[in-house]
């Protein structure tokens, strides 16, 4: 530009980018705002509320399961309906609660943390949210069709699933729609992160949450076709005369296990990597120290993602794989403990000699750290082939994955909500209620799931509505814990609603140690449009 005195450049070359906080133009009012919105904050909010609703729904099913298992004998449900409860509980929690919650976080935080005005494809973003609604209706609606909901477990194993009624078709369609939504979300997130970072925001300056989502989106794109293919083959086996998994027609039911778990194990990391990202932002904020070993955290996340492709066999040590195959999957699984250990070490090193305070997000983050590590250790136990052959399909497995996904993924989600709610809503939550929520969750969760290790070690199988008398006492305690944990989430719901409606005004930088762009560059509450021109990151 030859004429300097009145030259203004917007976009990448802008040098006064962070002064856009004077937005007096809010969103349109009414239902159409939510129906047609392309604003990443609105869509993030809808994802989070949807996920919370599904969490309550899946949680209600879990409480039904625990009520049935409170004492031996059949109390409330027939065995078929009990199996439907365990199946739909799993599907709802995985695809309806945990994954949408993390996509909600991605929608809220990715543009803010990379200094972008919105997602790369805002209309597709709107679509990927609204696809969730028909999928959820199909899943829940399957309870009301003849034969009841799918009862094969969330893994939808054939041949059982091939013999069931129309509810399986509804479940398959729901899984397809949820997959399409995830893929659209992932493409949007990847395109946004790679192309729309603010000037100066190099890859190695991105907050860990953004990094974990970049890798998660990559994993999703890589493995979602596998799930889509697997459930399509189930569908064609059911209705179009193919025999992919039907032994009577020359097919192989074991192939479904291989295919499903080739998707299923990366899926576990899809549900936990964004949690790592959230925790990696909360711990430094409350330790008032930078994250220890940032680069090693990035490499550890990438290593976990890569290794997740070669460990699927540890879910099927009992199907009769050759010993060499079992050994390979055992060692590969144990290898994952190395990058995971790097992460746990770095989180502890971040807190070491930090000026820590223990507000609710920090409590949940520390809760995550302790309990997820227990889940990781029980995973190592299950990785040992001879041990797994004994513990396979017992409550030990149930305890293991709930320590990973509830006290792992869910605790991180709750920690993240408490951490960013003041920024999102402009209001501060009630700290007392937050701490009560934490302690009840902590006690309730451990009471519910720790005894399940003992039950599994004693030989109690999973997915049964009745059990032998020797399992009665721990089951009773487990059910009491589940109800404490479940009802304590209502405190969370109340706290969030009360905060939004009448919370005290929050400060611009509510947490002293928070240092990502949304805290350092944006006012509280945030304007509807942010980073209209990208900030310069130094």
């Amino acid at each position: 530009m030859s004429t300097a005195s009145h030259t203004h450049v917007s976009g990448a070359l802008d040098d006064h980018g962070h002064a856009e906080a004077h937005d007096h133009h809010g969103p349109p009012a009414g239902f159409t705002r939510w129906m047609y919105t392309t604003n990443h904050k609105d869509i993030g909010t809808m994802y989070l509320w949807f996920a919370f609703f599904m969490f309550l729904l899946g949680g209600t099913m879990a409480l039904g399961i625990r009520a049935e298992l409170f004492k031996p004998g059949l109390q409330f449900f027939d065995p078929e309906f009990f199996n439907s409860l365990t199946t739909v509980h799993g599907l709802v929690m995985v695809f309806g609660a945990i994954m949408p919650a993390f996509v909600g976080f991605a929608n809220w935080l990715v543009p803010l943390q990379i200094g972008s005005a919105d997602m790369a494809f805002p209309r597709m973003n709107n679509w990927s949210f609204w696809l969730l609604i028909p999928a959820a209706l199909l899943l829940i609606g399957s309870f009301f069709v003849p034969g009841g909901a799918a009862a094969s477990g969330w893994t939808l194993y054939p041949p059982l699933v091939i013999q069931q009624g129309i509810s399986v078709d509804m479940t398959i369609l729901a899984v397809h729609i949820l997959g399409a939504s995830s893929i659209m979300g992932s493409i949007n997130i990847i395109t946004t992160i790679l192309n729309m970072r603010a000037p100066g925001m190099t890859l190695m300056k991105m907050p860990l949450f953004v990094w974990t989502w970049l890798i998660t989106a990559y994993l999703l794109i890589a493995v979602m076709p596998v799930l889509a293919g697997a459930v399509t083959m189930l569908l064609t086996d059911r209705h179009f005369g193919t025999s992919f998994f039907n032994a009577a027609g020359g097919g192989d039911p074991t192939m479904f296990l291989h295919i499903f778990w080739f998707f299923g194990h990366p899926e576990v990391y899809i549900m936990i990597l964004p949690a790592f990202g959230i925790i990696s932002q909360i711990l430094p904020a409350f330790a008032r120290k930078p994250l220890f070993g940032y680069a090693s955290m990035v490499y550890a996340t990438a290593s976990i993602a890569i290794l997740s492709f070669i460990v699927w066999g540890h879910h099927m040590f009992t199907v009769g794989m050759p010993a060499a195959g079992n050994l390979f999957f055992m060692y590969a699984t144990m290898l994952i403990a190395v990058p995971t250990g790097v992460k746990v070490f770095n989180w502890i090193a971040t807190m070491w000699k930090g000026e820590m305070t223990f507000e609710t997000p920090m409590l949940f983050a520390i809760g995550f750290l302790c309990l997820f590590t227990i889940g990781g250790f029980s995973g190592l136990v299950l990785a040992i082939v001879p041990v797994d052959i004994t513990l396979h399909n017992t409550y030990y497995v149930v305890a293991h994955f709930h320590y990973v996904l509830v006290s792992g993924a869910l605790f991180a989600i709750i920690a993240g909500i408490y951490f960013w709610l003041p920024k999102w809503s402009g209001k501060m939550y009630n700290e007392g209620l937050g701490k009560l929520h934490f302690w009840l969750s902590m006690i309730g969760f451990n009471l519910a799931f720790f005894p399940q290790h003992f039950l599994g070690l004693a030989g109690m199988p999973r997915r049964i509505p009745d059990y032998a008398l020797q399992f009665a006492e721990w089951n009773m305690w487990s059910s009491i814990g589940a109800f404490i944990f479940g009802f304590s989430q209502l405190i969370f719901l109340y706290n969030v609603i009360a905060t939004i409606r009448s919370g005290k005004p929050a400060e611009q930088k509510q947490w002293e140690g928070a240092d990502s762009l949304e805290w350092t560059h944006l006012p509280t509450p945030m304007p509807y449009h942010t980073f209209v021109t990208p900030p310069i990151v130094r």
Partner: protein
Amino acid sequence: MFLEVESPPYIHHSVPNRSLGPAGRRIFLALMAVTTLGIGMLAVVVGAWPVMPFAGAEVALVFFAFHLVRLHDADFERLEIGPHEVRVESRDAESLTRFVAHRPWARVIVRERGARCTLGLAYAGRTVQLGRLMSDEGRRKLAEELRGRIAVTAK
């Protein structure tokens, strides 16, 4: 005899923000395609061929998304307000448009519809869009900046 001193022209130049270069884009897409199609091929080998169409469709979608971004890499919009003329030059994907207006007769039209704000430069019965690469708030700021330099009308 005296020397006429004219103030320098006002120039507003906007470009889309891009943080990934062509090489990075190629590397990423290659990595993505190799991983996803590689997994698809593996599925075909074990007899689970229905995985492949999904993998192919997904890779195509990712390529299309990045193609949409790439199409607009060279986009820009340049507004120059000189002593006598107003020039708007704009590139949108493949098409390049130029618009020249006589400054005293040109005016900027600001249209507010709820949260939406659009800008246009009107002259001699024609209107061209302004601020295409900017957000609503950015366009509002631009309109404020233009007041005093050129006629601005709110509609």
